[in-house]
């Protein structure tokens, strides 16, 4: 049996965490969602530091930009410059549609950039499509390692 698809959501807004959780309920087979509330916690999680010694490495990172302490962009830069975690696809998932944010995120090697849809129905289908793409369509590095 295949292991569940692991998603790390880096998001400080509880409203958005709930929206993502709710949207994932409609996705089958079910995914495992873990939440880090900012960039610092995301890095601890990914590098299995402090309280995150026993967590599973995620298949996909959903990254918000606007967060306290360490912003999404800083976290993105650190993730993409760390040999241990840089191959994990990062989907920037944010309210910002500023051209400068989009440009900078790709310059820092974001794997894709999605603006959170305003409409709740569209938000739900966006999450569905992201998971579907990265789980079913894209081939990820850990699968290439399999015989």
């Amino acid at each position: 049996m295949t292991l569940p698809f692991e998603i790390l959501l880096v998001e400080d807004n509880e409203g958005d965490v709930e929206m993502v959780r709710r949207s994932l309920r409609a996705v089958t087979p079910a995914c495992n969602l873990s939440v880090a509330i900012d960039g610092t916690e995301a890095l601890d999680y990914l590098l299995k530091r402090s309280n995150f010694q026993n967590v599973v490495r995620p298949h996909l990172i959903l990254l918000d930009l606007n967060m306290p302490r360490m912003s999404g962009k800083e976290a993105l830069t650190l993730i993409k410059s760390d040999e241990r975690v840089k191959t994990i696809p990062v989907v920037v998932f944010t309210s910002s549609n500023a051209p400068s944010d989009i440009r900078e995120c790709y310059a820092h090697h974001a794997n894709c950039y999605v603006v959170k849809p305003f409409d709740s129905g569209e938000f739900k289908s966006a999450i569905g499509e992201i998971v579907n793409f990265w789980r079913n369509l894209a081939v990820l590095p850990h699968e290439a390692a399999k015989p």
Partner: protein
Amino acid sequence: MAPTAKQHPQGYAAAAPATGARPNILIVDDRKENLLATEKVLRPLDAVILKAISGNEALSLMLRHRFAVVLLDVQMPEMDGFETAMLMQEHESMHGVPIIFVTAISKEERYATQAAEIGAVDYIFKPINAEILKSKVKVYLDIYVQREQILKLNSTLQQSNEELERFAYICSHDMQEPVRMINSYASMLDEQYGAILDENGRKYLRFMTGNALHMRKMILDILAFSRVGREEIRLEKVDSNQIAKEILAEFETVVAQKKAEIIFDLLPELETSPTLIRVLFQNLIGNALKFQNGVSPPEIRIRAQTSEGFWQFSVRDNGIGISPDFHGKVFTIFQRLHRREEYPGTGIGLSTCKKFIELCGGEIWFESKLGKGTEFFFTLPEEAKRTL
């Protein structure tokens, strides 16, 4: 600005540069006694006096100081006054600095012409009349000080403008998230619990989503407005006819619904910002379709003609028109002339158009008759200015 007036009773000090530094006067003469005599005459003026005994010395002082005015003796050994002035003019800090030639040579036309060609603004003949010299120099000092004051005010204004725009940008950018959340949760509440609410409860939820949508439109419009000038303006060959077609396609539903007729000539290709053309057509066609009496179907005509290096476009409608009382307010940001229930909008569109088109070297205006219709005109240079 620092209240410097008290320290400088002569009066122009209030306008001195922010550092409180007094303006510099440069006197150039090969004879020490002349330098001292001139300095004595000018001492009562509120200025720092610098002296040079030769053209070379004057040039080296020029590299270290900015001058409000230069008094230059014409007859000097080695480098004469004209030569010195010509070399000075090449230096950036000397652009626009008045040079007064001081000369014993009689009022020969030849010298006056030569001096004028070099860019001297004035000359004084020897023997020097102290009062004339002093009042002439004072005039130039006053001009200098006023110019400095204006430059300083301009930069302060520009700075506060930029700060305001940055504020508007950041504010609206960060408001996108909470307004999306309000809208999403109100509609989720309606979906999931709508059945157990009474008619009033559902109405309140509709007010919430309706207003969240309106707020979102405002935020997007403010963002679009403040992005004009923030983002680099890309200039390229633009087929305005193609863009007009694309914009019309965006309005397809409204056009069908209102049975509108939109006619446009073959519109030109020109070198400009494609975003600008989109913004203009979106707003002007959108307004032409919107501000209608709802009885007769909208008729919109888009034209373009060329004259004197400019393309002039126009968008004419048969709508409700704009009352002359409001003609001055049409391009003011957030200015709306109607209740939102009558004609929805944020009052930002036309001010974005105006801001954008002026940055691209064009103009926008309109003619209107109440109850008959409005025609908006805008011009754009045929060849884009490369200075953008």
